[in-house]
């Protein structure tokens, strides 16, 4: 099992697992343990599967390292080399600490995606509970064709959730408050931290580097606020300050932005002038040669503030736009477009000139009709509505009350009584619908069963036509799944219903039996 090509990063001997001596291997992508004297691993975990590691507290007799997997299982290793146990464990721990985060992201992305889907879609969640938790089908099977399906849909709607922009004033919102005893309090929320990170990636980097290894989170932010980076109008940055590097980095970023130049030649001030005056000509005062030296400190700090605001705004803007696709048009075309825009007078032109952007709708009906309750399957098109409105208007216009032919008041009142609840015409069954008869919990259970059955059938039918042995295997499995579902879920439900309602309302039985009947047909089909 041990493939030789794997790179072994660390080998720790004399590690016990389940009271058995063995060797622990940390490899590039997984962690493995093999018992003494055997050349195969009995324990092997991909790093991606590991949720976290735990260590026994210092001073305990047994020096242990526990790995908790995403599935909830855990594996415990006991470092048994008396002299170096503690060191061994720490080395392993350190290495894992570095390795795990790298894989975590990969694993989590999928997991998060699943989690998110379940959270966002209660129906799916219920289905998951019905099918996976009750072990009708395995989780893998459940996700097998769901993820791919969804990922396509998601890439279309661009991660579903809209990226929230950053308020330009997020730093202003953390006004310091005096805490009464010669100190300042800054109130930070996760939103603000998020904003800081997104706007200043260098700070985020610093955070990742230093927290929690070198300092606590609190310490980090304290230093952040103390730093000149935050109070940028002061110019001298101390060397010890961890943020001085950030400031430099930002400076560099700003410079590179500036040297990159602008894409829109209409705003490029450098190439605006056709022929600038040569040096020494003109009346404008010559810019002093020794630029920064003879500027006062105050002037320097002022220009630092200005620079900072420009940079800040640019970063905020960029953070908001990060996800947007860059439209790649050549400079030349862009310039042409800008020029045309600049010379166009749309009111002098005929009405043809107006360019519009067409609305891209996935479901145009929903757009034109607004949200509607899901049950009503049939709705009229807007044309119908307009027509009917005009018909009604038309009728209203031509309507003339024929006052001589109205009903007598006594007849009218008796008709109203007859039509009121409890009146002559309102009696008799048939009016009560199923959803008034059956309690809601039964209804929802039925609904769940129905969707679950639908899901299973979808899996089942997706196997046809059976072209590969794999599909054949799946069909058989799905059939057994269906049977299992029938036995475990449908039968008990059916019996329950029969027990409770058979006596009261016969008419509903065929309805409840529907899935069952359907199932039998499937059975017949297979056999």
């Amino acid at each position, binding site marked *: 099992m041990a493939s030789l090509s794997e790179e072994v990063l660390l080998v720790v001997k004399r590690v016990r697992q389940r009271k058995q001596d063995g060797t622990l291997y940390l490899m590039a992508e997984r962690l493995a343990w093999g018992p003494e004297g055997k050349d195969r691993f009995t324990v092997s975990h991909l790093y991606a599967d590991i949720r976290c590691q735990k260590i026994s507290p210092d001073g305990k007799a047994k020096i242990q390292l526990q790995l908790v997997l995403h599935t909830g299982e855990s594996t415990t290793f006991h470092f048994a080399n008396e002299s170096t146990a503690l060191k061994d464990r720490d080395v392993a721990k350190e290495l894992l600490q570095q390795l795990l985060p790298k894989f975590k992201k990969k694993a989590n992305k999928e997991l998060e995606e699943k989690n998110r889907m379940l959270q966002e879609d209660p129906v799916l969640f219920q289905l998951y509970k019905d099918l996976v938790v009750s072990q009708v089908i395995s989780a893998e099977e459940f996700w097998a064709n769901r993820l791919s399906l969804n990922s396509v849909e998601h890439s279309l709607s661009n991660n579903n959730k809209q990226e929230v922009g950053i308020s330009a004033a997020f730093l202003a919102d953390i006004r310091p408050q005096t805490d009464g005893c010669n100190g300042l309090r800054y109130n930070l929320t996760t939103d603000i931290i998020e904003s800081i990170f997104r706007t200043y990636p260098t700070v985020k980097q610093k955070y990742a580097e230093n927290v929690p290894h070198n300092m606590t989170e609190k310490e980090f932010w304290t230093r952040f606020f103390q730093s000149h980076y935050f109070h940028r109008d002061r110019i001298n940055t101390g060397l010890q300050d961890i943020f001085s590097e950030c400031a430099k980095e930002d400076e560099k970023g700003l410079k590179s932005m500036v040297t990159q130049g602008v894409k829109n030649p209409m705003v490029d001030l450098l190439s605006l002038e056709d022929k600038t005056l040569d040096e*020494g000509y003109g009346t404008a005062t010559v810019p002093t040669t020794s630029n920064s030296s003879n500027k006062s400190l105050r002037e320097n700090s002022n220009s630092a503030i200005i620079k900072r605001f420009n940079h800040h705004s640019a970063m905020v803007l960029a953070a908001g736009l990060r996800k947007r696709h860059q439209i790649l048009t050549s400079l030349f075309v862009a310039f042409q477009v800008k020029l045309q825009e600049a010379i166009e007078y749309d009111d*002098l032109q005929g009405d043809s000139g107006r360019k519009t952007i067409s609305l891209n709708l996935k479901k145009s009906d929903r757009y034109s009709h607004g949200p509607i309750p899901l049950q009503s399957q049939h709705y009229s098109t807007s044309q119908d509505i307009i027509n009917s409105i005009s018909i009604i208007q038309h009728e209203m216009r031509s309507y003339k009350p024929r006052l001589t032919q109205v009903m007598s008041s006594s007849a009218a009142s008796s008709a109203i009584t007859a039509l009121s609840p409890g009146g002559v015409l309102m009696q008799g069954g048939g009016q009560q619908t199923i959803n008034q008869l059956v309690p809601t919990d039964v209804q929802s259970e039925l609904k769940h069963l129905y969707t679950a059955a639908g899901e299973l059938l979808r899996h089942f039918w997706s196997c046809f036509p059976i072209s590969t042995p794999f599909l054949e295997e799946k069909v058989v499995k799905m059939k057994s799944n269906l049977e299992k579902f029938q036995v475990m879920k449908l039968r008990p439900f059916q019996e329950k219903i029969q027990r409770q309602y058979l006596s009261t309302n016969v008419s509903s039985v065929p309805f409840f039996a529907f899935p069952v009947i359907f199932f039998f047909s499937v059975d017949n089909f297979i056999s």
Partner: protein
Amino acid sequence: MKLNIDGLLVYFPYEYIYPEQYSYMLELKRTLDAKGHGVLEMPSGTGKTICLLSLIVAYQKAYPLEVTKLVYCSRTVPEIEKVVEELRKLMDYYAKQTEAKNDFLALALSSRKNLCIHPEVSALRFGKEVDGKCHSLTASYIRAQHRSNPSQPVCQFYEEFDAVGRQVPIPPGIYNLNDLKDFGRRKGWCPYFLARYAILHANIVVYSYHYLLDPKIADLVSKELAKKSVVVFDEAHNIDNVCIDSMSVNITRRTLDRCQTNVETLQNTISRIKETDAAKLQEEYRRLVEGLKEANVARETDMYLSNPVLPDDILQEAVPGSIRTAEHFVGFMKRFLEYLKARLRIHHVVQESTPQFLKDIYEKVCIDRKPLRFCAERLRSLLRTLEIADITDFSAITLISHFATLVSTYSKGFTIIIEPFEDRTPTIANPVLHFSCMDPSIAIKPVFGRFQSVIITSGTLSPLDIYPRILDFRPVTVASFTMTLARTCLCPLIVGRGNDQVAMTSKFETREDFAVIRNYGNLLLEMSAIVPDGIVAFFTSYIYMENIVASWYEQGILENIQRNKLIFIETQDAAETSMALEKYQEACENGRGAILLSVARGKVSEGIDFVHHYGRAVIMFGVPYVYTQSRILKARLEYLRDQFQIRENDFLTFDAMRHAAQCVGRAIRGKTDYGLMIFADKRYARADKRGKLPRWIQEHLTDGSLNLTIDETVQLGKQFLRQMAQPFRQEDQLGLSLLTLEQLQSEDMLQKIAQIAQQA
């Protein structure tokens, strides 16, 4: 549509027309008929350019012998490109209507930097480098060397053009800079020299002011343009400054140091050449004796910078004997240089006239006026003889020689000011010699004299009578046009007080006042909450903006503004500002909204439009007076008073108001656009200031909006913006501010139109 402008058939490439456009064309036609000059003011965004083009092209077509060429001068490269595109539109329309093949040649001309297609040369970033490199590949002696020694690199594109390009005329059509480059690439010809050659027979030339106004360049490029041309200066509100700049020189200690090395290089080269090729220097000497200064035909490529003085003032005689030989000339330059160095070693400010300077130089170092006048000419000849490849290295000595020629040529209209240090930093010695032109009419005089019609036009030329005075010409038409509006899409407001009733003003005594700064901040803050998309705010000077931004930062005003909009600020670095500007537009584009803090007279205020959502409000903080303590300005004011009877205050106010109008006018383009114009200074309410705003702004300043508080401004602004945000359709405008052909021809409309133009 086809218009009848006073008997002239004009093709106008739109279906509709603004009444003022019609009126503008009428005035323009009258000017051309009279073969005189005109000053025309029409608001920006009412389609001046297309009117000018339509009418002049029609005129050219109707009277090809009367007007042979249109020379359209604009300020910036994007504006030049815009003009060419509008022209293309017009020509397309002509082609469609008349179905005749276009026989017009129209082209844009720009510097080498924008036209070069040589792979190495065009990769250089700065215009000066490109020019220098180009010269080193195309100068006649380089090409001569190439003939004997093929390994000497030359520019293939120029060679190709020189060989065949002149015989075959460029086919008729509209060429913008890119078209020229494409054409050049296809043919393998140099687009720059092709364009320079082609402007001589082109019907329409579009280029920048400098090609006509800067004598150094005009002499090279525009010398042979036909007299029967119509010259248009668009966006001409700053034309006087362009004129002045092109004839002024500043000399610092650094210039002199570099000049020193230049002189040494020259000396070394001369002694080297003397050993190897003395005949060359002899030949030059002989030529100078005979006064054949351009005998071997000024090859276009050899001319790097021409004489800095106007053509009429160049002496048509032989170079005086004292500087004829190369060594003597270098010695002469050395002496002059030493003199200048000595003049810069001063501890107090010196101001003198040019005759005084010449007298002093004669007394101190015995330099005559005459050899000084030939300095530029002589240096040029020497550089050519010595076959200096990289001319850009010699910019310092060229500058000094130009100064020498200028100072000895003009006795009036110039002043010399030597300052030992900058006013702001009196402790740091940084002596500068300003040789400053005070009379813009000097540079523009040949243009008025030479060309049949010169049109000066812009959105902001008020008060109209001042331009003819300071540029010293007699126009036949002077007119200002208002913007006819179906809805008042501009809303000028004068904010004079804060909510605390403290007067708001950028007056020197109170500008640093805490309350003033705070009120300015509150105004911006309030506006940022009610104005959608973009707001542009202009300050009177860069230093003032820096100070205000710093105090706003300390007071937390900026942070509050940031809750509403992103903030971008103009800096003194053009690249940085460009980036800020682009980001600003991006923020307006994506709906976040932004504020741009900028400076009147800065690059942004001069060259960038803030149309539609890029500028829904413009705030002018203070009155943008020029820095009045400057000695150059003082000298100029004095000169204006003595020569043109213009009072200092009148000129200062005029100058401030034209810049203010320029700033606020940036936000309006066309009648579908709208914007608030907020003048945040109580001084704007005074009649002398208000009266100097362009008529199209003045008209909408009601008595009720003259001295508002911030709250009142916000109320009025809100109301205005809500009104403007309603849909505005073409039908709303038709018949009022937008006309069809039939409407235009109706009798009472023509009467109404006659009132649009206001003769000054």
